[in-house]
């Protein structure tokens, strides 16, 4: 079923604020095996000009993917989420996330296309601090594969 292109431009309510913590940054850096002290030491971060430890570049996925899935599960949109795969992911950075940031995500439906029965939806996630500063913008392509696709 082709998605309703009338959803293009729809803006979803902001997620609840998420507080970026030093502990979560260190845990994420450990999980990707990156031993850079900038993720763990305020002094090392300061040496590069940062006011606190910063997060690895894809840390934002923690909040943006969850925000995107909230849209995927919107019954009004009618996306068959069982068939949804993450196709592309892109981030545009204003600055790195850092410990102490309190952030929300506002998701906007950027585009909807149907190609060979595959529904393709691009979601833009604006990641802002609760003070209103844009930190990073996320572009997530989700693909709901055609039902007859046996692969």
């Amino acid at each position: 079923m082709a998605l309703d292109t009338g959803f293009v431009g729809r803006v979803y309510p902001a997620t609840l604020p998420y507080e970026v913590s030093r502990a979560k940054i260190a845990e994420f850096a450990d999980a990707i095996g990156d031993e850079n002290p900038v993720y763990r030491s305020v002094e090392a971060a300061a040496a590069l000009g940062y006011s606190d430890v910063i997060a690895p570049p894809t840390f934002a996925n923690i909040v943006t993917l969850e925000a995107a899935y909230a849209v995927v599960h919107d019954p009004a949109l009618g996306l068959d989420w069982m068939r949804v795969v993450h196709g592309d992911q892109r981030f545009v950075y204003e600055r790195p996330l850092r410990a102490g940031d309190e952030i929300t995500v506002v998701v906007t439906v950027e585009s909807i296309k149907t190609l060979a029965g595959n529904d393709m939806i691009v979601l833009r996630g604006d990641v802002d601090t609760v003070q209103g500063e844009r930190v990073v913008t996320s572009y997530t392509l989700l693909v709901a594969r055609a039902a007859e696709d046996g692969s």
Partner: protein
Amino acid sequence: MSAGARLADVTAGDDIAAQSYQVTRETLVRYAEASGDFNVIHWSHRHALEVGLPDVIAHGNFTMALAARYLVTWAGDPGALQEYGVRFARPVVVPDTDEGATVEIVGRVVEVLDDGLVRVDLTVTSSGQKVLTQARAKVRLR
């Protein structure tokens, strides 16, 4: 801190040294906890088979994170990315062995822009197949 690549020393066409990364089931468990993505296909062999996968696969975002790690290690500053994107072309299949899977990453500087930014393209493979495509970044160098 690590020196990192210097803008003055970088030219379009430069190859960035290849790196390989070991990915085991333990890696995936740790990434699941860190990212909050507990999708069963990243830890249950049984569920992976049920959806037609050959085995448990790594989170696409984990592979994306590894490639970001490669980029910022080269740049010498984890805050150096201005733009970074990937396409998830094929999954990284992670068998339940001590060795797990290997992800190989190699980069190339494709353009030096005016404002201290360089464009880098990455080739990201596992078992000889591209797992990420269109893996591109704009990186700020000092």
